[in-house]
């Protein structure tokens, strides 16, 4: 038994990456997740419209964070603010009772807002001050169903898993089998190999996506009120990032075990940090920035926005542009790294004398 234990330790210490994963990762995850795991919303972006907007805004205090006061505005002004995500609560004055529109896709913010309104009403009753009653009106997810806000994001998580993990294994398999050297000698460019590798997974993942969304709608009654095209663009960009990440992981992994480890390290933090479960806005400052470097954060925003709120493409340009930039960077880096594997002699071609392709044919 002693022999086994010593051998096991030797092997463990040889593979520094596994060791790091075993020792370092739990510590990092606990710290990160501890700060990220927060359902308590301390700031609710609020817009106040209507003739008594200024007065109503004055009566609001934390957690309400008044981002705009528009005395000339009306219900539709407030609704458009909620739709494009700049506010979660919209107070519409000038009618009795005063209306509080709420964005039902922001489950925890809505719950916090409801609690705050109840608290204010209680305080007013206690002090005997007469304030106009506020009637809440939850939009996009009136019953505040958890499944409605989870499923659009979960589609992204599933694609992330499939895309990153399977793609990363695909190229490592070629490396382990030695067939990658043959590919390098075949008349392919690095780009041909990468696109050839990604395209089948892209098609499969797209079919997967359609199936998951339809299943979510059928089984859980999740609505799809927005533009399919906008959703499609967002999903495509997101898929390119995840598949590109898979390729990138495979170019830095020597075997399938390493690839799986790296893929897990990329995927798991996104489950908690992407806003899928805990609101990004409620996360501690430093952790929130981590959320912003993960692609799932942006896809969750797009899928919820389109499916539940019919958010127009103009309101989603930031996540779309970020995903585009990520896809470009990740795929570019993957091609560069891949080139080192596939065409080492191409980089120093000038030093060698080679016959051109045509002359040889």
């Amino acid at each position: 038994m002693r022999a086994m234990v010593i051998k096991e330790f030797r092997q463990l210490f040889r593979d520094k990456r596994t060791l790091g994963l075993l020792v370092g990762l739990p510590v990092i995850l606990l710290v990160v997740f501890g700060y990220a795991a927060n359902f308590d919303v301390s700031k609710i972006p609020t817009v106040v419209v209507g003739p008594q907007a200024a007065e109503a805004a004055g009566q609001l205090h934390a957690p309400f964070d008044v981002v705009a006061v528009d005395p000339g505005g009306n219900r539709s002004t407030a609704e458009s603010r909620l739709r494009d995500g700049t506010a979660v609560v919209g107070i519409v004055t000038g009618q009795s009772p005063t209306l509080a529109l709420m964005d039902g896709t922001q489950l925890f913010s809505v719950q916090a807002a409801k609690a705050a309104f109840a608290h204010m009403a209680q305080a007013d009753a206690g002090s005997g001050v007469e304030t106009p009653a506020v009637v809440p009106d939850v939009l996009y997810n009136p019953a505040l169903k958890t499944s409605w806000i989870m499923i659009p994001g979960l589609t992204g998580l599933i694609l992330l898993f499939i895309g990153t993990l399977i793609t990363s294994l695909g190229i490592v398999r070629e490396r382990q089998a030695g067939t990658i050297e043959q590919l390098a000698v075949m008349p392919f460019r690095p780009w041909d190999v990468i696109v050839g590798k990604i395209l089948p997974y892209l098609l499969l993942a797209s079919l997967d996506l359609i199936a998951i969304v339809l299943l979510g709608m059928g089984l859980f009654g999740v609505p799809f009120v927005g533009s399919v095209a906008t959703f499609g663009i967002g999903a495509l960009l997101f898929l390119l990032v995840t598949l590109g990440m898979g390729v990138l992981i495979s170019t830095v992994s020597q075997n399938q075990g390493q690839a799986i480890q790296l893929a897990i390290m990329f995927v798991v933090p996104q489950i908690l940090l992407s806003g899928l479960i805990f609101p990004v806005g409620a996360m501690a400052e430093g952790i929130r920035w981590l959320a912003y470097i993960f692609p799932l954060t942006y896809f969750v925003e797009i899928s919820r926005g389109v499916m539940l709120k019919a958010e127009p493409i103009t309101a989603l340009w930031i996540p779309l542009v970020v995903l585009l930039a990520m896809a470009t960077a990740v795929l570019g880096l993957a091609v560069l790294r891949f080139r080192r594997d596939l065409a080492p002699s191409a980089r120093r071609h000038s030093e060698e004398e080679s016959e051109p392709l045509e002359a040889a044919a």
Partner: protein
Amino acid sequence: MTWGLERATVTFGTKTAVDAVTLSVAPSSVTVVVGGDGAGKSTLLKALVGLVSLSGGRARRPGKRAIGYIPATAGLYVDLTVEENLAFVARAYGVSGADYRSRSDELLERIGLKEARDRLGGQLSGGMQRKLAVSMALLHQPELLVLDEPTTGVDPVSRAELWRLIAGAAALGTGVVVATTYVDEANRGSTVLLMDQGRAIATGSPSDIIAAIPGSVGVVRESERPLGQSWRWGTSWRVWAPTSALPDNAESASPTFDDAVMIAALVNEGEEWCHGAPR
């Protein structure tokens, strides 16, 4: 067109894997690169096909479409069928239609896999896998065929079949380079390149190399190890006397290619002692 390497040097960090080796591959010729493990054979072949960069010397190779290469490790996809493996390389090299049908039929017929088109690569025996891999490398009728240890771990019958396949390709005009650790396979080549520690010890036809062995070789039929540089050969000893006369108890013997390989390893600092390759 003659392909090859001219004083090619490949370094990995501070280690010189291939040291100023010259290799020339004429059309319709078979060059066998012989050497032990770690001699630099695989790196030499990779340098020839462009998989590793040269830090010195020159490479002369055809375009990718005219190269066929199988690495020592693989050669085929184990999760594709025989037919699918061939179809993949056919598409990659633009061999299609009737051309593909006739080429693949002919190759499968020759390697005895015609009835096994639908078997997975992984279900084939080691020898069958290597034969299929060589066939895949031959499908597009390359000008330069580079095979890294295609016969290692393969049974004698399959080895003979593999060599017939290789000879057939050379007969049709392909310049072939084969690396091997099996000394007896040197005789299969029109040219042999003997490598040790990254250097070319001897180049030429097997008979050139034998003829150029410095000193004399003898045989001692006694159980005691004779004086001087000697090695076991069956029940007797082979003795090599590089400069002086053979020991008294030794009979003079005609050197064999095996002697040449043993002597190559004994030669001081891996100095080249034969260079008779066609220039």
